[in-house]
């Protein structure tokens, strides 16, 4: 009931205005661009150092009955990570800054724009930013011969779902943050996900208990979905991963909008 009320009154023009605000901020100075570029190079450096560098030592890897070069195994995971980081950078640090310190959302909420529209606009913007990373990364993968062009193209929409999922959760987390120090905690969690989500080693090689834990966490599903498509090995199981990510999108968005309303509209 509450949910349908929130969703049915959404105005695309107002969501667009929230996106436009961020576009304006992007145009306004070089500092933002620096942040933007760094988000692309981080996963690229991991790909080159570990995927290609360590990969030379590892050689071939057997995944699901197929034999893969290690770099081909790692690259889709780095792609999923790029989608996650791109979305999180925008919906955590930037979102939190606008919500808590710049009071940008207070100013916006004095206009017809609703909290859910802010959440949608911010998420859309995070997607634009994240897609820049992943788009560039997909091209790098194809150029390095780590994915065939068609399968890389198929993986791209999956990275968008990954971005939406982590972006929504990022916003939800931001509405709960007390101050910048809380982000250290988040960064640690993010790094743990990055290391253990089947990114650098097949999850099947981990002890059984650890496998269960990993299968509950979100980046695992993102990596599995993106990798399944990027290496050209689609299966019905990928739908389950997609469903997990979709649930993150819906849950995160609604939670973030509710929290914005409860924190800012009092």
């Amino acid at each position, binding site marked *: 009931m509450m949910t349908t009320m929130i969703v049915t009154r959404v105005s695309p023009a107002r969501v667009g205005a929230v996106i436009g605000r961020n576009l304006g901020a992007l145009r306004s100075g070089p500092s933002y661009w620096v942040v933007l570029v760094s988000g692309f190079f981080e996963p690229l450096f991991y790909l080159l150092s570990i995927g290609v560098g360590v990969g030379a030592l590892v050689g071939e890897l057997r995944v699901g009955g197929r034999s893969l070069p290690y770099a081909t195994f790692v690259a889709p995971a780095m792609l999923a990570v790029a989608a996650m980081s791109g979305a999180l950078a925008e919906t955590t640090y930037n979102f939190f800054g606008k919500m808590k310190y710049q009071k940008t959302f207070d*100013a916006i909420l*004095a206009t017809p724009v609703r909290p859910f529209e802010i959440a949608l606009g911010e998420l859309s913007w995070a997607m634009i930013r994240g897609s820049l990373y992943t788009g560039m990364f997909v091209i790098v993968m194809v150029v390095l011969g780590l994915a065939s062009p068609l399968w890389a193209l198929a993986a791209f929409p999956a990275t968008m779902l990954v971005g939406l999922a982590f972006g929504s959760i990022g916003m939800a987390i931001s509405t709960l943050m007390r101050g910048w120090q809380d982000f250290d905690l988040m960064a640690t969690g993010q790094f743990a996900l990055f290391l253990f989500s089947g990114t650098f080693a097949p999850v099947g090689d981990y002890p059984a208990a650890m496998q269960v834990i990993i299968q509950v966490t979100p980046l695992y599903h993102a990596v599995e979905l993106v990798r399944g498509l990027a290496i050209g090995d689609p299966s019905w199981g990928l739908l389950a991963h997609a469903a997990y990510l979709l649930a993150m999108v819906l849950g995160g968005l609604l939670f973030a909008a509710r929290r914005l309303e409860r924190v800012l509209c009092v």
Partner: protein
Amino acid sequence: MSEQPLIYARGLVKRFGEFTAVDGIDLEVAPGEAFGFLGPNGAGKSSTMRMISCVSLPTAGELRILGMDPSRDGTTIRGRLGVCPQLDNLDPDLSVRENLTTYARYFGIPRAVARRRAEELLDFVQLADRAGSKVEPLSGGMKRRLTIARAMVNDPDIVLLDEPTTGLDPQARHLLWERLFQLKRRGTTLVLTTHYMDEAEQLCDRLVVMDGGRIVAQGSPRSLIETYSTPEVVELRFGDERPADVLGKLDGVGERVDPLPDRLLVYAADGDAATAEVHRRGLTPSSVLVRRSTLEDVFLHLTGRTLVD
């Protein structure tokens, strides 16, 4: 229709947990009026303003803005209000001009109209030469003027100003008052809160005095002074002697005497006559100031406290 109040409230209440910020107030603001909430910090002015601006919903009571119900038509109402909040929340990531054009987009105003409107408003608040600047280097007065321009970007039916000149230096305040006076002359309905009585006197046609979440008096500045104070006030200081100790010797001087920690206020129709009476009784104040009565005196009389601590 023109007689329908733009703002109508009956028994309006706002509670935060156990704390009652606004404790059952009644209001009516007519079109074209400049209406003020006068009161000290914590009187409930800002909470009332947030309810009127449809950002925060009332806990109880009836509220109609532009004839509509904020709990149902909040989006529509906000589209016709201009809000200048107490703390500047201009967008530091955007230029002065973009602060206006971007804000206009939230109201669904087309880009071209927004640009034209921004130029007009920057002229009006005398910031045209800073249009391309970022917000951060602007002075406090300039930021506040920009916030007022932003509040007018949708050509609102009511402009709500929460302590528009708090924290500004006297020169910036006077420039701001002059701009607000221009707005008022154009017929814009202004609703403002202040704890400066001179601001209330200059800008408001009618005001309510708030204290502890309640309205303790209302009327025009002049009628409030006439009702709750005397035309003139004599301020007496007695060097080392404590005002309370002198109080007894001033019995019957003027209409009423109020001791403050550092001075005595003698309320009188004729200040000079009261002063003469003080001297006739052999008292020798170290300083005497005869002045006209102000809203500050009204507030002191109504609440027993001064407005600005």
